[in-house]
């Protein structure tokens, strides 16, 4: 009961904030909604016994990436938002249309896949590493054994991205 309440509350907030992110006029407000959204998603992760992922979500997403967005928004600091020129009704219209299309698509996919999944419920659990709450150690173990090479590749990716970002943002090459 409490669990359901918590889930519905969180889901409502997450979706509401998502809508706010997409529809906010000011980019700064958009960023703020995004932060709160991510924090709530982190709470959701905690309910799903994924404390480590939750903390990472807060640390990397909320504490790192979104700060970067905020930085850029402040740096760009537009006097006029690009949407000022566009027709709000066109926005709503196309948004609804697109929303319908996408929602239909997703519902079809999810329901069909779930139907397939329920059919073979017996095999749903039992493969992979079973875990309990407080699984950080296990996660580390998996990450550094089975997924070692992808992990290293991810770090490589981050390094390349870092260098690329510096090169792109540096004002004068050769300075």
């Amino acid at each position, binding site marked *: 009961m409490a669990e359901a309440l918590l889930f519905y509350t969180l889901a409502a907030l997450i979706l509401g904030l998502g809508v706010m992110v997409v529809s906010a006029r000011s980019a700064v407000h958009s960023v*703020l909604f995004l*932060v709160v959204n991510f924090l709530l998603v982190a709470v959701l992760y905690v309910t799903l016994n994924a404390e480590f992922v939750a903390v990472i979500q*807060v640390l990397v997403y909320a504490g790192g990436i979104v*700060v970067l967005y905020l930085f850029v928004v402040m740096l760009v600091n537009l006097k006029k938002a690009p949407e000022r020129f566009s027709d709000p009704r066109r926005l709503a219209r196309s948004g609804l249309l697109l929303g319908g299309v996408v929602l239909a698509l997703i519902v079809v996919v999810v329901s069909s896949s779930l139907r397939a999944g329920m059919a073979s419920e017996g095999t749903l659990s039992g493969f992979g590493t079973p875990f309990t709450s407080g699984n*950080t150690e296990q996660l580390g173990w998996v990450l550094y054994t089975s997924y070692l090479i992808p992990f290293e590749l991810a770090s490589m990716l981050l390094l390349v991205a870092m260098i690329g970002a510096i090169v792109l943002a540096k004002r004068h090459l050769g300075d």
Partner: protein
Amino acid sequence: MLDTVVIPLLKIAVLVNAVLVAVTFLVLMERKVIAWAQSRLGPMRVGPYGILQAIADPIKLILKEDITPVKADRHVFTLAPIMSLVPALVVFAVVPFGPDPLYYIGDINVGLLFIISVTSIGVYGIILGGWASNSKYPLLASLRASAQLISYEIAVTMTLVSVILTTGTLSLVGIVEAQQESGIWFAFIQPVALVLIFIGGLAETNRAPFDLPEAETELTGGFHTEYSGMRFALFFLAEYANMIVISAIVVLMFFGGWLRPFPNIAFLGFLDLLPAWIWFVGKVFLFLYVFIWIRATLPRYRYDQLMSLGWKVLIPVAIGNLVVTGVFKVVF
């Protein structure tokens, strides 16, 4: 219901109040300590030896007019101090004041990561405060502050990893217990890490000599130039609460938390006459004193020097420390 809801809520209420009161007295302590360092007396008028100044200051701030600049983004302007203070208070949820579960609200297995991630949220308060003021000095200061905080956070996190390697746990209670088992404070095992975290802590709390975001002489008041009244007080509270957090982390990780000195030497047992939480608070205040002492002594870094210190000294040293720790861990 009692155990899961009422007692935690009570603990939270007590803790928040305790922190806030501690902050007001910390301000008084800072004024007094610096005054003594500078051969003057400090506040002397309100109450005996100015002790009641700690109460007078908040009253003054609450009663002052709360000004919102015309051109400011009002919502964000209001939100910023709150976003600054809340993470500072939330962190205390995992800080153990003693060995007994009574002394902490929760001991989660990723406690240390929790602290790091929550404190990283505190940046928003500063950035948004500077941005929302719609004024040049605060904007400059907030850009400085955010860059500074993110930079030093990397160094601090890197250093924490080496401590985690030593303890094998992310739980703060676990870290203290590990020190009890090994019978020695980690300050002696990880001295480099201690220094790094202390310096990084100074920078993360914007304290001298890294108090650039609020360098009065350069940027008038820093990111909170346009703030007044209670909203200013919230920033103020957040800063001092953060100081307490950093001191608490340092004490927990390097100075045995609530443990008395030499916890395994029996004949010093009389030291246990003092309750554990007194030891903890005493150590925390010792470090707060060091913070204040440094502020009275050192000049301020320049922005570029600060950044080069962070990136070119602290981070490499932290990585080096991590590597050395790892090697020791593997070899022994």
